[in-house]
């Protein structure tokens, strides 16, 4: 595994930059000014300390946490396609807590928001886990459908129980300063959610490399039949736990986004973060370190796409096209590696489903 890593990293980098190049060609072919788009993207992602900290790193924060959430599920062979819904569930619950207990001191309110956000995400994924364990409904379909339920639930909350007092906009009021994550660097918009995201990544690394439960999850993901034959592992229970843990981490990401960036809830809070996170996780090889690097690259991509839209009028959806191409690129690369016998198990075609 370790000996294969440099090659995986090189492949991932090649896939990332090849996809960017391909999308650049598409942008050029669609009749936009590609060189202006390129410089706008670079400036928005790396052009200044503000661009790097308040653009790239801020945009990388939810993608890092969600990328770890996806990795946890995928490593156990659970195809959680519903990180978006779990993210939204966490965000909604955190905002509800922050608005309800707005007079509480920060030392109590913030931890409670984080806890409730993680629990809401876990509960949202838990629904899918129960559907799988008790009712034999596959997690792919259930987590996908739950994304749409979550999106509409947010639409209801911001027009109904949580709407701002004047009732003119579909959004919640801003949460009180005590309920917000503090800014990390003065003058920047990077917040403590980034530290939490890195801590989650370190925690995931420790869990998978150093604990028995993490090892069990990896065995189940690598080969459910081996895990079953070994006799000591309840495959279904391990996968349910992985799905719920994945949801909790996604919920935490949602909490950090509302407590650190938006300070409130509105429709379109997640521009498909949960799907982009699949690309983040796969590009990072489902490992904590790899996911950190790939989240930073995707943060730069997102910040760059913001800049391209602002300065060159280029539709931001090009970023999601790029993410889709990266997933496809990693699938091609893993085919090549499988031919050499070195593909990461969880995205092998016979795992999961």
């Amino acid at each position: 595994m370790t000996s294969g890593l440099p090659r995986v990293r090189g492949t991932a980098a090649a896939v990332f930059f090849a996809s960017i190049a391909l999308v650049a060609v598409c942008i050029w072919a669609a009749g936009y000014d590609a060189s202006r788009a390129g410089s706008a993207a670079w400036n928005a992602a790396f052009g200044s300390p503000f661009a790097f900290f308040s653009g790239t790193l801020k945009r990388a924060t939810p993608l890092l946490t969600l990328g770890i959430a996806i990795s946890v599920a995928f490593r156990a062979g659970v195809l959680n396609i519903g990180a978006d819904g779990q993210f939204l569930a966490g965000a909604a619950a955190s905002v509800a807590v922050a608005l309800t207990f707005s007079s509480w001191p920060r030392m109590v309110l913030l931890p409670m928001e984080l806890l409730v956000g993680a629990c809401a995400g876990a509960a949202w994924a838990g629904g899918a886990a129960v559907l799988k364990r008790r009712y034999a409904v596959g997690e792919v379909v259930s987590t996908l459908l739950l994304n749409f339920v979550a999106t509409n639930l947010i639409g209801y909350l911001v027009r109904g129980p949580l709407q701002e007092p004047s009732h003119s906009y579909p959004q919640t009021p801003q949460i009180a300063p005590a309920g917000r994550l503090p800014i990390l660097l003065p003058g920047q918009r990077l917040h403590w959610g980034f530290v939490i995201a890195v801590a989650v990544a370190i925690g995931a690394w420790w869990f998978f490399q150093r604990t028995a439960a993490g090892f069990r999850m990896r065995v189940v993901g690598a080969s459910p039949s081996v895990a079953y034959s070994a006799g000591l592992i309840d495959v279904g229970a391990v996968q349910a736990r992985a799905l719920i843990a994945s949801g909790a981490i996604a919920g935490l990401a949602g909490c950090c986004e509302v407590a650190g960036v938006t300070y409130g809830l509105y429709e379109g809070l997640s521009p498909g973060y949960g799907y982009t996170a699949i690309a983040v996780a796969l590009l990072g090889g489902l490992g904590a370190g790899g996911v950190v690097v790939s989240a930073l690259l995707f943060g730069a991509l997102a910040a760059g796409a913001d800049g391209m839209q602002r300065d060159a009028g280029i539709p931001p959806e090009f970023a999601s096209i790029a993410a889709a191409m990266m997933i496809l690129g990693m699938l091609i690369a893993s085919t090549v590696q499988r031919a050499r016998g070195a593909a990461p198990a969880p995205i092998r075609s016979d795992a999961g489903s």
Partner: protein
Amino acid sequence: MPVPDDLLGAVVRGATPIGLAAIGELVVERSGVINIGLEGAISVGAVVATVAAAAAGPAAGLLAGAGAGLALSLVFGLFVTRLRAQQVIAGTAISMLGLGIAATMHRSLLAGTDDVHVPTLPSFPVPGFDRLPLIGSAFFDQPVPTYVLYLIVPLVAGMLYRTVAGVALRAVGESPLAARGAGRDPQRIQIAAITFGGMLAGLAGATLVVAQAGVFADGISAGRGFIAIAVVALGGWTVRGVVAGSLLFGAVSATQYLVQSYGSGVPYNLLLAMPYVVTLVALAALRGAQAAPAALGRAIEGPP
């Protein structure tokens, strides 16, 4: 409560795009492949149909939409057969790709400040049938795509159960190795099934624009691709079950409009969530995936 005359018609209208996508996905899944990229094929079908219909009329829109869905699904097909990529992950990427392409085309080709409205297909009463009591006008006074669905359902049923090709396709879905042993080429059969399913998904997307809304909007497919996949499971992987599941979805969406127009006080967004919740509950009630093709979701092992 008086039932509006057109309620049954609304059921059929709601069921048509889902039925088209689901009957296509049924064929795909019976060949052992699950195509999560359906959502992307529907979206691309819808946007391409809008562009084509604006240029050359609604019939061109239907054809172009079907072609676009076919093309996108062909990419998916090559990934899951030739490269043996994990089907769900490849499908998710194809969905993202399709949604991204649709949104980009919408922004750069169609939308300035105004959306492009395209001419829609009129309802076409089938002489004789449209006078049947109760169901006549609902089932036989619809735009052309609904009749396409009426034709395709028996054709697919006949193909799956009464032709050699259909038996071979189902054999690939149960045991690709056995099918190969019997001299069939599983990959070719799967590619054929996937392009057929993609074509119908593109047609479903085109139907949303050219026969129903008359205008493209971001998120127009609204998860219909995923619901169609759920409908296939709900229908127990049979033609009859898929038809029933599509009508159930049509009934849910018609109820949605009905409740809304009666001003019942149920919040609009909760109504919008209803199809997804009903689908999940129905899946749970029928115990999910009991009769799934044995090799569903798995790449074919062994040398190609």
